């Protein structure tokens, strides 16, 4: 029997079950630590009317940006939608809906969603447009707004290494939103650079426990750099 082996061999299997109108939570910051190939598979599948919850929307031609090409996204929940020509066009034409969410609130919404916390109070955004329609409450003389958590039909994340059980570690700042995204999907799909055998990773250094991972696939990644900034040797 399969036991805890989460490995699937094709991207078709990895994303099987994704339907039009579903909500997908994606890890990544800019184009760092994004599940490149899972996103490509969504493009290939042609799913429409998707709600995507992700800090950013990739860039033109890479990451979630490629889902704009065939107008697969109905709504983005993001903190920063950056420099993306196609994004701008679809937003201005009203084809694309955007729910801007402060970055820390977005990270906490994902974590809370995965942790069974339906809502939490935060000072972030109090007194701004973000607070409109939200409950305000005072604690210790300071005002906070109530933010609700998010979950997805799917979560798609990218890690560095994982064992076959889905116990994963991230590399450097490619961690970013991936650990929280991984907890918040009804089905969580993880792609990694290397799959190892259970027992090879130190239990004390697992960033994402396999309990959150439903499907695991090994891929190859472009890992494009958005702003290559160097100093003299």
């Amino acid at each position, binding site marked *: 029997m399969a036991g805890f082996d989460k490995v699937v061999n094709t991207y078709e299997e990895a994303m099987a079950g994704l339907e039009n109108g579903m909500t997908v939570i994606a890890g990544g910051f800019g184009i760092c630590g994004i599940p490149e190939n899972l996103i490509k598979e969504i493009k290939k599948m042609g799913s429409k009317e998707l709600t995507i919850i992700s800090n950013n929307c990739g860039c033109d031609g890479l990451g979630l940006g490629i889902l704009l090409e065939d107008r697969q996204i109905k709504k983005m929940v993001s903190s920063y939608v950056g420099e993306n020509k196609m994004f701008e066009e679809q937003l201005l034409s009203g084809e694309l809906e955007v729910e*801007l969410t402060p970055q820390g609130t977005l990270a906490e919404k994902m974590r809370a969603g995965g942790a069974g916390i339906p809502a939490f109070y935060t000072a972030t955004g109090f007194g701004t447009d973000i607070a409109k329609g939200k409950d305000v409450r005072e604690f210790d003389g300071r005002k906070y707004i109530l933010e609700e958590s998010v979950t997805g039909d799917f979560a798609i994340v990218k890690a560095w290494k994982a064992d076959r059980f889905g116990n994963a570690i991230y590399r450097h700042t490619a961690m970013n939103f991936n650990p929280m995204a991984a907890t918040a999907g009804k089905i969580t799909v993880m792609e990694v650079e290397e799959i190892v055998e259970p027992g090879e990773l130190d239990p004390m250094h697992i960033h994402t426990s396999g309990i959150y991972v439903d499907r695991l696939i090994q891929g190859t990644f472009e890992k494009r750099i958005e702003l290559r900034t160097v100093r003299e040797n």
Partner: protein
Amino acid sequence: MSLSRDQMAIRVARELQDGYYVNLGIGIPTLVANHVPEEMEVMLQSENGLLGMGPFPTEDEVDADLINAGKQTVTTATGASIFSSAESFAMIRGGHVDLTVLGAFEVDASGNIASWMIPGKLIKGMGGAMDLVAGADNIVVMMTHADKYGKSKLLSECSLPLTGAGCIKQVLTDLAYLEIYDGKFHLVERAPGVSIEEIVEKTAGALVVPDSVPEMKF
């Protein structure tokens, strides 16, 4: 003479203390890192999940998996730690960062700040700015005193959508260093050679000018 960008960074760097954890916003605030006094150690937090940001990498060191919140390739300093975005904003929201420096379009006499959106232009999003201003006790806003048309950016009430309400207490402009309390701007220092009249003229919000306003020294 109004301050150069580097002079502004030098002046803000005087707010640093040894052992400070600091978050520098994208743009001019990043220049502050170049002016940390030599006898002092500070550690830079990047809200995408890095505490202890090192210098930019050499060509050989460039790593797509190691970037800062401005999406630039960086390195780690000795004693760095790396964590998730949730953990990063737990640090920020929880008030563990000692000093935050960020730019703004407008600040007003109530300590409100507008820094993320100009209606009519495309909305790019607030990123981590709303969390940073809500989480830090110690924030320095760094911006020009007036816009390129000479219009004051220190207002009685912000005209643009807010990033945070009542959270700014210190502003460093190219003309002056000001504190905000009791619903007013308070002039603390002025740029060398800049007259109090010029500062008064370019400050739209209520401004308190004490008898003596020392010039900054560089």
